[in-house]
């Protein structure tokens, strides 16, 4: 009986050892979309909002942005679109944008990551930093792994009785 149990255990171990784990299978699954060439440029959109509590509400030019009604954005009752610009991101080449308060936003594309699944968009590793005039750094480094078409926000700089809210979206 002991021999029988040992034989069964050994067979199960061998069988499980011979079969690939789901994680490995997922890694080996074909399909990852080919990554973009290293020198390929992608387009990114930067929106600059001014958040205040002056009661003017949300600027219709901003468009549909339901997040503004939720914390932490809901700390301010008014949002005004100051600027909307498109920048081109090239891997290894930072792109700088001057903000209304004189700060400089520097965005660079670090890497393009193939999607894990066929039906998912590519992901982009993007880094951002904000340099204030006079040499002070507001944000030394922020590096995100963003899905194409998704936005992320950097907020908190004081500007004219309110704060600046920067939205950065990597275009698909």
């Amino acid at each position, binding site marked *: 009986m002991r021999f029988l149990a040992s034989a069964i255990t050994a067979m199960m171990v061998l069988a499980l050892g011979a079969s690939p784990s*789901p994680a490995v299978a*997922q890694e080996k699954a074909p*399909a990852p979309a080919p990554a973009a060439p290293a020198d390929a440029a992608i387009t990114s959109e930067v929106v600059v909002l001014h958040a205040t509590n002056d009661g003017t509400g949300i600027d219709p030019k901003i468009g549909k942005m339901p997040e503004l009604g*939720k914390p932490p954005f809901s700390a301010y009752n008014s949002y005004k679109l100051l600027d909307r610009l498109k920048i081109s991101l090239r891997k290894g080449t930072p792109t700088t944008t001057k903000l209304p308060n004189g700060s400089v936003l520097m965005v660079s594309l670090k890497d393009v990551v193939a999607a894990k699944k066929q039906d998912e968009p590519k992901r982009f590793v993007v880094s951002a930093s904000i340099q204030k005039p006079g040499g002070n*750094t507001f944000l030394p480094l922020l590096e995100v792994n963003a*899905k194409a*078409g*998704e936005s992320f926000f*950097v907020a908190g700089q004081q500007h004219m009785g309110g704060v600046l809210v920067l939205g950065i979206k990597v275009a698909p």
Partner: protein
Amino acid sequence: MSTANSSKANHGDASSPPTDLELMLYVDGELDEARHRQVEDYLLHDPRCRAKVAGLVTAADMIRDSALAASAADGIADGVMAKILEEKGGTTKASGGAVVQPLAASPSGDAPRARTRLQGSPANDNARGIFALTALAVAAAAAMMVWGRTGAEAPSAELTAPAPSAVLAPPAAAPAHEPAAVPSAEGEIIEPGVEVAAVDFGARMGTIFYVPREAAASGPTTTVVWLSDDGPGGQ
């Protein structure tokens, strides 16, 4: 033999006493008739030869008894074997047709039956069990290989990347205009659209929020990095 008898008969004289060889032939009844009669007459008058013949007869009887005993032992063994086979012959013959002769005879008939039982179905059942379980294990391995190659996602794969709700910055001293509560996305199984890979707030206080875009907290989120601007370097 007839040649030897004739030669001995020729060597022997009718009046001469029989030799030892002739006495042995006499005891064995292998002398020719004339010499046999002569030896017989001689024995009537010679007690010494009679004693020799009596000794030869006794020796012959002993040898014969010994031989019979040996053959009788063989007969006993054959008898025992025959009896054993007869006792279990019904099943053996019924199942196999041919009679299987055991290698060694046993004093009782129980041992062979016990041995037959030990060699019977239990061993076959174990073999069948091992074979069945081995086939089951191989089938399970094959199923896992097929499942892995189809690219099916592991049931727990989505749980390995929950939307982080951790605040990388120091949790205290958040800016006054920021909400005190951090929207929690714990337990969310949807991969966030934007993951913070690295952040350096420098000397400032910062908080990372994952703001749900929809009413349901389990829906997609928007990543927000909010820094205080009243610390070192602030305006």
